[in-house]
């Protein structure tokens, strides 16, 4: 097999292990699981003064902690994936190894994806079982769709941006500050972007269309019209996110190359 592909595979494997041994990912997954369980438990106490379609309510309930965590918290938590090489003092050694830049970046990304996907799968199963036994049967198709569309899309787009954007940061702290600025500050403009299906909403790092789409399914029953986001907006947000990701990926690769030539 091609040397670069073998390197990519093994790097993915070790990055995956390091993500799980680093505890941060475990904390994120536990946070999602616990928030979901708490929501379901509140919901199951049947104290809400309204009648809801339980099918939509289930995904709406679970999507809120999932999407917000993946959209905002995940990029911050994993932002040290590349800067930690510098901080641990491994970067200098890595720079002397015959590893192409695309393998390095690809290994970091795939390792993170693999780690998060495993965690999300576990949370999906645990939350699904908990819902089933506390409230009742789930609409599995809708439930899995929500995890795939909201979970996987946010993981691939925002998770990858969380790895790639801080590529030039020399320390974990700087990486975290940068990502907090990028992924938390947009909340300051929440009033203008959360209810507007526009280009600004599509390229917004919080991905409001994805975050609100499934909540809105439940919300519409509660308040009539919480949001204007449709499945079309979700699709456009994913496309815009993938374009952003491609651009950031090319820039990260270019930065590594430039740094190598400048050294």
């Amino acid at each position, binding site marked *: *097999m091609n*040397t670069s592909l*073998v*390197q990519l595979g*093994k*790097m993915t494997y*070790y990055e995956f*292990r*390091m993500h799980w*041994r*680093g505890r941060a990912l475990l904390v994120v997954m536990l946070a999602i699981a616990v928030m979901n369980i708490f929501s379901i438990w509140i919901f199951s106490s049947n104290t809400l003064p309204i009648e809801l379609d339980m099918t939509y309510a289930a995904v709406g309930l679970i999507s809120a902690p999932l999407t917000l965590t993946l959209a905002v918290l995940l990029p911050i938590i994993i932002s040290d994936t590349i800067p930690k090489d510098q*901080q*641990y*003092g*491994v970067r*200098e*050694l*890595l*720079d*002397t*190894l*015959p*590893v192409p830049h695309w393998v390095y970046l690809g290994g970091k990304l795939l390792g993170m994806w693999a780690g998060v996907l495993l965690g999300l799968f576990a949370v999906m199963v645990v939350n699904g079982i908990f819902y089933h036994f506390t409230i009742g049967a789930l609409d599995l198709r809708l439930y899995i769709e929500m995890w795939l569309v909201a979970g996987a899309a946010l993981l691939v787009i925002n998770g990858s941006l969380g790895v790639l954007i801080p590529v030039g940061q020399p320390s974990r702290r700087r990486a975290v500050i940068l990502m907090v600025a990028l992924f938390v500050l947009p909340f300051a403009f929440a009033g203008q972007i959360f209810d507007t299906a526009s280009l600004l909403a599509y390229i917004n790092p919080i991905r409001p269309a994805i975050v609100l789409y499934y909540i809105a399914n439940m919300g519409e029953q509660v308040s009539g019209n919480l949001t204007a986001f449709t499945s079309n907006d979700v699709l456009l947000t994913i496309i815009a996110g993938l374009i952003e990701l491609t651009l950031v990926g090319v820039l990260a690769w270019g930065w590594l190359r430039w740094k*190598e*030539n*400048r*050294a």
Partner: protein
Amino acid sequence: MIEINNLTKTYSGNVHALRGVTMTIGSGMFGLVGPNGAGKTSLMRILAGLLRPSSGSVNVFGHDMTTSQGKQATKALLGYLPQELGLYPNLTAREFLDYIAILKGVTDSSTRKRQVEELVEMVRLSDAANRRLKTYSGGMKRRIGIAQALLGTPKLLIVDEPTVGLDPEERVRIRNLLSDMASRCTVILSTHIIEDISHSCNDLAIINKGGVLFRGNPSDLITRARGKVWTILTSGERPNNGLAVVSTLQLHNGVQYRVLGTPDAHYNATPVEPSLEDSYIWTMSQSQLPHQEMPIPVP
């Protein structure tokens, strides 16, 4: 063969790390010695492809290190131990070595496994190889650093201060290990521990303030200081008058000083055979004398 021609490296702020260094390094073990800030690490980093020279040329086994292709080709031949190597704290030693081996291009799993096991055994970490690296002491981390540099049977091994932080027994082991490696590849050992050089290198350079003060073999360096090393036994004051005191030994009948220079007759000094350390200190002290030309590098 490594050929370095008129190599300079100037950092921002007009800091000259290397000033026109020219030398050729053949096979075997080559020692690079000098005080802190002499330019050793800059030279090593240029040879490892981590740093671009300001001017001059470096050719490593026929690969021009000023070009991107040359750097890439050299990386495939290189084993490198930086001065301050960090490790992934959450990997075990075995995992870390396996990871580095594959990044070095050792893609065959059985070859990789064999190499990792041999090296773990060689640096005497077999018992701790399944422990996470965050539990390792400084010396153990250093040994893992040396093991990773030897992965992939490199043709050029660059080790920067490899024995720092090791106990005496371990230092000897690592020195012998590097000497053994020198029969199969070129080893460049940078250190300020002269003892490491004297026990293992057949070729060396002394570097200071970015320039080469001496280039040759250890016996040539010792010859330079012959007739300049003395012992003085006195119960009086510490010898001075331009003498450099190398060591002080308290004896029952006074204090014995080992000095470099030309002592006055009243000291009743006894000439002694210089060690490599004496010669190094002599060479360094001569380079710092005012109005004296820097010694010309020996090709």
